[in-house]
């Protein structure tokens, strides 16, 4: 019996080892690829600077679509901040998704809104009913449109904004995100520069702005968050965007452009019918559907990422909210992978079918499951005395150090290329959070992911869940 158990133990150990090594190889490859991508991006940006774009005439027009739901506390200031984005051909559409608070009244009062004749509303993508469309009577807000509609969820609200947009490109974000002033100027760069491949989606890195100084809706001073949980998420975001997404972008393997900040050609969005309102992983699902659409059209395409942080958000500051968020992300992932399961190892879809989609299945979706099984494995075989504890602890230390190196390299890449977190103290805080991550943050993260899987597995209904935010402490400038 013990021999049988031992041989089982060895076999399972090998499986875990191979999985771990494969994951490590992907990470290592990601570091190399992203280093190349960031370096090239930096060199290229010298030939197409923000200053060149801001003065150009034939550049594509852009609409920023921001859905808002019950954001009365901050809506006026947030809209003001979004209005101030610097781009010559810029429109802003804020979609009030059936808020139950006083958001609309505040907007009407502050921006002197008047309804426009909407007898004939052309809605290529069906959405919940539009109650009214507003434009400002003040000349300085002429690029602002507010749509008041019945509640239909975030995706539905964005779809509504896409319907009303008249520009070539649409940038989707959230009303409570802080978008960098020159974000659009940087986001259109790939659209201007790409030759034979059409850019179907472009994402920008998202940063964590908890406890930072915000003035008039503009990030004045970025600070490392005070608490460990958001600080760890700073490192997590840096790692995900700078290493993960830039690396995948280098081989045109990006399957996800973050819903909080993504730009798309409007025509392509209309062709695929906009965001899917039946999933909570709508950003991933849209990106995959756009890719599939282009594959079917047999057109060359590209999904790209801008390494610079162009959008700032507030991440969960308590463990319960954090668990809810990761639970939702996992459910979204499940739904999307299930919906597009025909892609799995399907050579008709090229690299997407053979490499990128399977990677998501095995490593993005599979990682928490493997981790969970790993814990059961340790408990079970530890109980039966089959684990060589001194070696296991040493192995754990080695893996832990590898993780530390990986996070440190990500932080190094970040401070090497961007201006944020430039003091030694800030860097030390980030590194410390990264080194504590496996003991505090990661177990909670896995718990959240498993919770999401459990809900899907047993058909427990759950929506977006409420994401309570502390809210940015903002100062209002003298001019406002």
């Amino acid at each position, binding site marked *: 019996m013990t021999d049988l158990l031992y041989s089982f133990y060895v076999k399972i150990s090998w499986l875990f080892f191979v999985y771990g090594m494969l994951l490590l190889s992907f990470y290592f490859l990601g570091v190399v690829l992203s280093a190349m991508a960031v370096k090239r991006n930096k060199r290229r940006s010298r030939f197409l600077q923000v200053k060149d774009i801001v003065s150009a*005439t034939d550049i594509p027009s852009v609409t920023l679509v921001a859905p808002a739901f019950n954001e009365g506390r901050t809506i006026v200031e947030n809209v003001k901040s979004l209005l101030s984005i610097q781009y010559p051909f810029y429109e802003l559409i804020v979609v009030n998704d059936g808020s139950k608070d006083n958001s609309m009244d505040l907007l009407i009062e502050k921006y002197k809104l008047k309804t426009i004749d909407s007898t004939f509303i052309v809605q290529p993508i069906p959405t919940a009913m539009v109650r009214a469309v507003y434009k400002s009577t003040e000349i300085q807000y002429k690029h602002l449109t507010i749509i008041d509609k019945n509640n239909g969820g975030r995706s539905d609200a964005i779809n509504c904004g896409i319907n009303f947009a008249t520009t070539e490109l649409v940038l989707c974000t959230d009303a409570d995100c802080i978008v960098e002033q020159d974000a659009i100027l940087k986001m259109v760069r790939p659209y201007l520069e790409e030759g034979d491949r059409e850019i179907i989606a472009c994402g920008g890195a998202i940063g964590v702005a908890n406890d930072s100084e915000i003035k008039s809706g503009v990030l004045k001073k970025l600070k490392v968050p005070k608490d460990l949980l958001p600080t760890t998420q700073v490192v997590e975001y840096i790692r995900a965007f700078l290493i993960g997404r830039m690396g995948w972008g280098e081989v045109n393997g990006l399957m996800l452009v973050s819903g909080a900040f993504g730009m798309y050609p409007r025509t392509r969005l209309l062709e695929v019918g906009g965001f899917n309102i039946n999933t909570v992983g709508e950003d991933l699902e849209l990106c995959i559907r756009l890719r599939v659409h282009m594959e079917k059209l047999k057109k060359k395409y590209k999904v790209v990422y801008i390494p610079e942080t162009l959008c700032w958000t507030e991440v969960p500051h308590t463990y319960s909210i954090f668990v809810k968020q990761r639970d939702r992300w996992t459910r979204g992932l499940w739904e999307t992978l299930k919906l597009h399961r025909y892609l799995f190892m399907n050579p008709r879809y090229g690299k997407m079918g053979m490499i990128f989609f399977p990677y998501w299945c095995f490593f993005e979706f599979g990682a928490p499951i493997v981790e969970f099984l790993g814990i059961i494995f340790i408990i079970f075989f530890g109980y039966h005395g089959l684990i060589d504890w001194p070696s296991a602890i040493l192995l754990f230390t080695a893996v832990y*150090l590898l993780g530390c190196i990986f996070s440190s390299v990500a932080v190094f890449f970040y401070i090497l290329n961007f201006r944020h977190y430039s003091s030694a103290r800030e860097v030390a805080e980030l590194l410390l959070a990264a080194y504590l991550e496996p003991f505090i943050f990661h177990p909670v993260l896995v718990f959240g992911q498993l919770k999401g899987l459990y809900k899907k597995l047993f058909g427990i209904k759950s929506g977006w869940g409420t994401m309570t935010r502390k809210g940015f402490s903002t100062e209002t400038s003298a001019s406002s």
Partner: protein
Amino acid sequence: MEGKLLLLISILLFFLVLVWCTIGISLLYRKIRKKQLDRIEYTFANEIAKYLYPPRGEEYSFINVQRALQAVGAKPSKKANIQYLIDLMIRAQRTMLGENYIKLRLLFSQIPPYRAAQSKLKSRKWYVKARGIREIYEMEQSQYLKDVTRERNNPNIYVRREAQIAMVVFLGWESLRFLPYLKREMTLWQQIKIVEKLFALYPDPKIKYLKKTYATQRPYAQELLMRIIRKYNLFTEVDYIIGFLDHESFDRRETAIYCISSFKLTGEQLQEVKAKIFNVPTIEQQVQLLKYIHQISDTPDLEFYDAILHTGNDILELSAAEILWTSGHEKLVHEFYYSQYSTIDALKEVI
């Protein structure tokens, strides 16, 4: 086993410490470098200002500028600083026109670096070469035109883009003899930049060069020509754009719709556009054209809108109905929608 793992841990620890040291050094370097660059920028701006508008009663010559810049480290022995200085020179030159521009050009030809761009042209690195070409045309060193022209089909997109822009800067309208026949395609930014440079430096159109290139079949060239027509507002050449409104390529149609939107058309041209709208295969583009037609028409062509209402596409129908509604033809819209339902009961059901 344990020995090997300990060795691995030691290696990983060593590597981690190495990353820490690199982070520390780069933080320090960045701080120092930023200060240095700020100093150069401030001095450059100050000296340029004094050179262009010397304080009353003071003479300000090239040598003052040169000395001040050298004092802050912008000297030939420090290549990175010199490169930064060149970037500042280009930046300054690109903000000014008229007398100040001429004065600056004179100043930059008198102070170092001399012939920095020429050596860059020979570099194997694309970003150095492309930068060299940019410096050549920004500093108007036309003596290198031959070397630059050679790069117009370079496999690297940035090198050939800069070379093509340089050709426009030096040759003006005559560059249209080459541009529509390049081997590789042009990105949108290349087209934008070429049109802008042409317009900024050669504001008087030479239509004969334009007409000669109409025969080109290269997609990028057709788009470029449409953009030139738009930028120069060449009303006589609008027919060239109209020809692409129902082109089979999505991108060509997109550019044509964009470019035509800044023109008012003759009655005949308007009729042609109206006829073409039915051949456009993308609904979104049809809607755009419909809005354009409405915008430039004095009175709505009821027959045309009636035809649109009967295309069978909801989006087009709604767009046409909206136009008719807002131009005071509500009755027509009512009639159309009533006619959709055979009986009053069917209509009531919908309502």
